[in-house]
Each structure stands twice: as structure tokens, then as C-alpha cells.
């Protein structure tokens, strides 16, 4: 096959989409778009086009990252820039089709921004908006723009050119390029990618394997899912390059079963690669033989750890083993194996498509390039972002994310998943890079940023992480299996009002033991959320233990709901919704809550809030004093 010819055809196909007389409509249909109603929007658009006898090409694309504005559609009309519309509903979809497609009025009030050459009155440039201006889209360059199920779209945007260049070079030359780029593993630990590859090459032997780790078990992180759903070929190209460099004939993608759409797109993309001759024997006449197989994860957090992941691919219980030997020496089926994260491999493809300098133009001295983050929790604009490494937490949370909703105060940002830590306000100006995060007591992790406001109790959050880690402990080593359970019990006691003054020291001692004695990263990092919250929020622990008070008014044991007699109009909303019949009162008369019966499920206050605001949550001690 002739790559130049493929590129020519692909570019022609891709360009014709935008040159056609028919408008082009892109619908964001990644998991976030779908759950927000992309399918409904699509069918409304189709109906409306038919009704108006209008033609348009409709393409399902991935996620552009503005998950908070899903469903998002983008409309391109001949000779005009594309317009992004956010929060599209059944009603606005109809209006947009009628008004813009049929009558040529672009409805600026619904638009998020324009993309491409030209300007439309009243609509900002998409990449100049608050959310996107501080971002640098490299890894996510195709996401939400191309059809993830069409390999030609990827090829038309320089796809597979990096691989074509790589196979013209000796593997050592490719390693040199990756070394120049300064790429560090995006899975969390930040080990230099070139070095891992070199170790594997140096370990000799005929058979070697590559594993792409797409397990992404960190709660709060979805960068890999988004990338695999929106631009799977960028990861697959990276796998080809890495496979060629380390001398592997086979690669496995270990992807979690909880990501059905990502799996579907991957399977589809691999089929296309095969059709185009990017997999199989003698790829592109280079003599390189290579194949990719998908292994579905089966729900075990510990399988993100390299040796546990290998055991799982071999069909065993996913328990880690001691290292050395490291997987690069003895990995899958005892052969040298490289395990790279999804984003690392996408970065490899990018470096080879552009060049190492272009990759390294952003970032800090020790952390090069850009990094994707999932920005979630109590934040105005949650979504997927990509920024240069070294961007501060404040820029990410307040400039891009728009700060905390509901006028509440920022309390902490959780970075690095259950293995990371919670950083308070005075760390907001810390740059996000591998070393600064470690110094602050958190870790970069894979890039999940969970924002917490003043209504989040830090003791309860620590308890949550401990519950997670001890449930996910594989049970092989004692410090992790029993130690984490002990810590969880202590934390549960504190949140339930049974905390003792000596508990804080006990938690610190247990943490030290678990850190020192555990076999793998899961165990060693289990105490991290507790240690950081103890360091930065010890007052909250003390308030629970000594004062029977939860400062965030989150722990059930320490709160009470009360109806404000002067505000309550007796609408009966709360009365009807209470699952335990704890609310009583006559129609149109103020109601009361029976504190003995109340289970504090929160249903009544959720219904009343914003409507009548006749209910408040107060510390239980105040209620007791009031009696």
C-alpha cells in the first residue's frame, strides 16, 4: 500500500466535508454528550431537516472537553466559520436548525463560539473564550472535531505520519527523539518514557510485549476514556511506534469494562488499521510485524499497578509481586514488557508527527509538554482540559474552571486520586508539575482534579478514600489489608461521633506502618489522603472529636434539619417526600420535623431549597441547646 496515496484520498474526503454546499453538523457523542441527551438532539435535528427539506451531513464526534455544556453541536456552512452551540435541548435544536440552516440567522445567543476563518457578529472566537484561552490543545487537538470512527479523518490531520517516519529510522533514533522531547510517563509516576523503552531493549530476548494501560481506575479521572472515545487512532499510532521501538510483535490494550463506548471505538479503529495495512505482517513494507489485542479489565483498581496488571492479562488474580525483576526485564509471560499509559502513547505519536522541540516548547524544566486533566467536583465548568505543565492550580480552577458555584468558598483540591492528597487554599499558586505536586504531599497521578468547597467534610472525604482503598486492596500483604481496615474503622468512628482524642496519633502511626510495609503502590499510598488532610485540616478532625461538631455540616451525626417557621407556607412538599414520616403539620401552616424520627436523608431540604428556602441545616449541638 502507498501511504501518500492514502493521505491524498483522506485529505480529499475530509476537505470535501467542509467544501460541500450542504452544511455539516457535528454532534458531541462521547459518554458525557450521550448522557446529556445527544441522541435525542440528533433525532430532533434529523426530523427538523426533513421537515424543512434541508440537507446536511451529520457526524457524531467525541468530546471537546466542555462537558458542562453538553450536548454540544457544531455547524459549518460553506464559506463561514463553524459555530459551537452548547446546552442544546430539543427546543433549541429545532430553533437552531430552522434559524441557521434554513434561514441563515446564526442565533448568537445560543452560541459558545466560532472556529475557523472568519467572524460572525455577536459570537466570540471559540478558542478566545475564558475556558479555552489558557489551554493548549495538543493531545486533544482532534477531540470533538473529527469522527473517531473514521480513520481518514485522523489521517487527514497528519495521523500515522509519525509512525511512517519512525519506521524509516532505527529504533535508537526514535528513542533519541523521545528523550529530546523530555516526555515523562503520564500514568502518574512520571518515569522518563525513553528510559523505560531502553531498559526493555537492553534486556535482550526474542519476544517482547507492549501493554497500553487504559485501566484508569482513579475515581474522578476520565482523560483516557475521553481520548479513546474521541480520537482512538492517536493512541493506536503511539502503540505502533512504541511496539516498533522496543521490538515487540504484539501489544495488549488493557481497558476497563466500565468504558463500553471507548472499547467499541477501539475495536472499530483496530479493524480499520488492519484494513489499511497498519497491522499484520510486514507493515508498510518495513518488515515490521505487529498486532494489537484488547483485554477488558474486570474491575480491580490494583490492576493499574504494573505487576498486577500483568497478572490480570495472564488470566490470574490481579495481585502485585515484588520488584525487581521489573517488567522491562521480566513481565508478561516472563518476557520483557513495557507498560505505557494511554496519554503517554498519544504523546509519542504527537512527538513523532511534529518534532521533539515542538512538544517541549511548553512545560517546565523537569516536566515538559502539556497534560490533560479532568476538572470535576464543586466547580462551575467541569470538563476535560489540557494545559502546559507548570500552570498553577489557581489558573486551572478559577480561570478555566470558573471557580466555585453557588457563591461558596473553595476548600481543597484533591489531586492524584486515592493515592494523592488534598491541597488547601494556600497551595493555589503552586504550579502543577510532577515535582511541585510531590513536594506539596500530593502526586500528579493520572490527572484527576476534584474540587471541594466548604460543604465538603475533609474527615469524611478521607474516610471515603480509605473505604475505597481498603475495598480495592488485593489482600496479599498484611499492612495494606489489615492496616487500611484499621484506619477506616478509626475514621468511621470519628465521623460518627465516636472519635477519641488519641485517634489522631493512632492514624499517624498506622499511616507510617502501612507506607513502610506495603508491597505495592496501592498500599504505600493508601494513607496519603489521611496524611494530607491531617496536615492541612487537623482542626476539622479535632472539631469532630472534641466538640461534637462537623464544620462542613456534612456528617449526619453532627447535624439537624430545621424548618424556619416564618418562611414555611405549609406547601406539603417536604411532608409528602419524607420517607420516614418525620414531618408533620397542617396544610398552609408551618411544619415541624420530629428530630427523633429524622434520618437526615436530605430529601426535604433538596426540594425546599431554591423554591421556598424554608429549611436549614444546623449543627446538632445548637439544636440540642435550643431545646
Amino acid at each position: 500500500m502507498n501511504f501518500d496515496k492514502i493521505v491524498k484520498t483522506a485529505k480529499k474526503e475530509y476537505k470535501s466535508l467542509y467544501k460541500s454546499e450542504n452544511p455539516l453538523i457535528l454532534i458531541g457523542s462521547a459518554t458525557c454528550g450521550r448522557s446529556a441527551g445527544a441522541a435525542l438532539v440528533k433525532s430532533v435535528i434529523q426530523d427538523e431537516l426533513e421537515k424543512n427539506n434541508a440537507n446536511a451531513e451529520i457526524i457524531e464526534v467525541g468530546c471537546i472537553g466542555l462537558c458542562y455544556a453538553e450536548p454540544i453541536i457544531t455547524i459549518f456552512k460553506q464559506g463561514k466559520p463553524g459555530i459551537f452551540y452548547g446546552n442544546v435541548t430539543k427546543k433549541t435544536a429545532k430553533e437552531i436548525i430552522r434559524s441557521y440552516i434554513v434561514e441563515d440567522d446564526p442565533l448568537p445567543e445560543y452560541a459558545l463560539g466560532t472556529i475557523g476563518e472568519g467572524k460572525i457578529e455577536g459570537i466570540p472566537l471559540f478558542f478566545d473564550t475564558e475556558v479555552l484561552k489558557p489551554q493548549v490543545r495538543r493531545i486533544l487537538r482532534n477531540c470533538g472535531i473529527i469522527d473517531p470512527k473514521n480513520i481518514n479523518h485522523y489521517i487527514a490531520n497528519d495521523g500515522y505520519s509519525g509512525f511512517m517516519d519512525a519506521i524509516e529510522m532505527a529504533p535508537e533514533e526514535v528513542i533519541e527523539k523521545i528523550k529530546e522531547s523530555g516526555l515523562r510517563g503520564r500514568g502518574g509516576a512520571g518515569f522518563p518514557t525513553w528510559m523505560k523503552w531502553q531498559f526493555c531493549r537492553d534486556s535482550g530476548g526474542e519476544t517482547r510485549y507492549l501493554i497500553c494501560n487504559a485501566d484508569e481506575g482513579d475515581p474522578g479521572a476520565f482523560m483516557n476514556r475521553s481520548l479513546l472515545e474521541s480520537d482512538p487512532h492517536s493512541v493506536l499510532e503511539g502503540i505502533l511506534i512504541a511496539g516498533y521501538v522496543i521490538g515487540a510483535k504484539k501489544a495488549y490494550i488493557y481497558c476497563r469494562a466500565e468504558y463500553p463506548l471507548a472499547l467499541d471505538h477501539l475495536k472499530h479503529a483496530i479493524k480499520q488499521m488492519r484494513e489499511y495495512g497498519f497491522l499484520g505482517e510486514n507493515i508498510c513494507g518495513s518488515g515490521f510485524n505487529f498486532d494489537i489485542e484488547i483485554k477488558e479489565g474486570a474491575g480491580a483498581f490494583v490492576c493499574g499497578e504494573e505487576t498486577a496488571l500483568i497478572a490480570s492479562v495472564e488470566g490470574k488474580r490481579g495481585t502485585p509481586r515484588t520488584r525487581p525483576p521489573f517488567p522491562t526485564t521480566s513481565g508478561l509471560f516472563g518476557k520483557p514488557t513495557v507498560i505505557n499509559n494511554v496519554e503517554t502513547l498519544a504523546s509519542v505519536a504527537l512527538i513523532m508527527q511534529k518534532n521533539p522541540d515542538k512538544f517541549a516548547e511548553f512545560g517546565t524544566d523537569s516536566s515538559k509538554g502539556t497534560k490533560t486533566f479532568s476538572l470535576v467536583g464543586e466547580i462551575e465548568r467541569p470538563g476535560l482540559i489540557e494545559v502546559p505543565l507548570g500552570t498553577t492550580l489557581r489558573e486551572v480552577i478559577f480561570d478555566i474552571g470558573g471557580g466555585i458555584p453557588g457563591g461558596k468558598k473553595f476548600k481543597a483540591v484533591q489531586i492524584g486520586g486515592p493515592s494523592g492528597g488534598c491541597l488547601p487554599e494556600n497551595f493555589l499558586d503552586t504550579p502543577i508539575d510532577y515535582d511541585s505536586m510531590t513536594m506539596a504531599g500530593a502526586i500528579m497521578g493520572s490527572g484527576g482534579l476534584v474540587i471541594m468547597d466548604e460543604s465538603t467534610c475533609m474527615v469524611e472525604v478521607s474516610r471515603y478514600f480509605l473505604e475505597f482503598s481498603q475495598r480495592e486492596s488485593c489482600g496479599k500483604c498484611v499492612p495494606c489489608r489489615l492496616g487500611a481496615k484499621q484506619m477506616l474503622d478509626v475514621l468511621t468512628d470519628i465521623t460518627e461521633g465516636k472519635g477519641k482524642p488519641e485517634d489522631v496519633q493512632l492514624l499517624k502511626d498506622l499511616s507510617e506502618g502501612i507506607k513502610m510495609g506495603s508491597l505495592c503502590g496501592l498500599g504505600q499510598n493508601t494513607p496519603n489522603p489521611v496524611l494530607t488532610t491531617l496536615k492541612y485540616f487537623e482542626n476539622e478532625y479535632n472539631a469532630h472529636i472534641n466538640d461534637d461538631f462537623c464544620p462542613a455540616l456534612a456528617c449526619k451525626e453532627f447535624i439537624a434539619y430545621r424548618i424556619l417557621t416564618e418562611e414555611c407556607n405549609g406547601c406539603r412538599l417536604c411532608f409528602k417526600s419524607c420517607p420516614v414520616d418525620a414531618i408533620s403539620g397542617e396544610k398552609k401552616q408551618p411544619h415541624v420535623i420530629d428530630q427523633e424520627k429524622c434520618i437526615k436523608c436530605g430529601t426535604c431540604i433538596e426540594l425546599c431549597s431554591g423554591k421556598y428556602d424554608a429549611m436549614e441545616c444546623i449543627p446538632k449541638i445548637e439544636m440540642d441547646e435550643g431545646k
Partner: protein
Amino acid sequence: MEDKLNEILSSYGGEKSELIPILQDIQSNYGYLPEDIIIELSNFLKMPESEIYGVATFYSQFRFTPVGKKHIMVCTGTACHVQGAPQIVAGIERHLGIKEGEVTIDLEYSLESVGCLGCCALAPCAMVNDEVESHISLKNIKRLFKRKKIKKK
């Protein structure tokens, strides 16, 4: 029942490393891992049943009892947690009259809490069969999981 199993096994070579994909295939066909099927599988892979159970029980994906027609998996990832997932789980439990891990008597719904579904930007969320429902609140539980009225005496 046998035919379905044979069809599944025919696409595998009988290697031990295929155990997890085979179990996943069985579960997606039967809805869970039935005991008699595990016995058959143990013959096919020439592997003791205990070893198969050892692997199957390790991973949270595998179930040994059938699920409801609509299997609800409430996400308890960090973003969902800080935005009220525990209250949502409790709310659904009350609404359906079952505890987490159980199935309703009419076999209509089953409820499970799972780790992160990766839909954090639209938290709190849940997966119902293969579809993600986002922005779940105590207010919309009843609408999302409609039930036939149980007649009260």
C-alpha cells in the same frame, strides 16, 4: 443452555490466559456466572473450579446471582461522592425497597454501587444497563426508576 456455552467456547483455544475474557463472555450472555457453567468451563480449561472461583471472586465485575432487567450501577467515584452519591444510593434503596447488591422481587431492578464510571463532569451519575444517566438527584429518582405501584393494604 449447553449450545450457548459451546458457542462461546468455540472462539477460544483453551489457554489459561483466556479465563477472564471467557468469564466476561459468559456473564454478558447469561447475566451472571451460573454454577453449572463454571463446572463445564473447568473441564474446558483443565483448571480446578476453585481456581476459577479464585479469579472470578477477585474481580468486582463478576456476579454469581442474576441481576434485574434494569441493572443500576450508581457511581461512587470521588466527584460523585462529593456531589452526594451516598444520599443517592440511600434514596434509590428506599425507593426500590432493596439494599445495594439486591434485586427487586419483580426482577425489574437491581442495584449496585461501583467505582468511577468516568462521567465525573456530569456527577452524580449512574449506569443503567449500558446507558449513563447524569445529574441524578433525590428529586428525579422516582422519575428515572419508575415502578408499578405496590398496592398498600
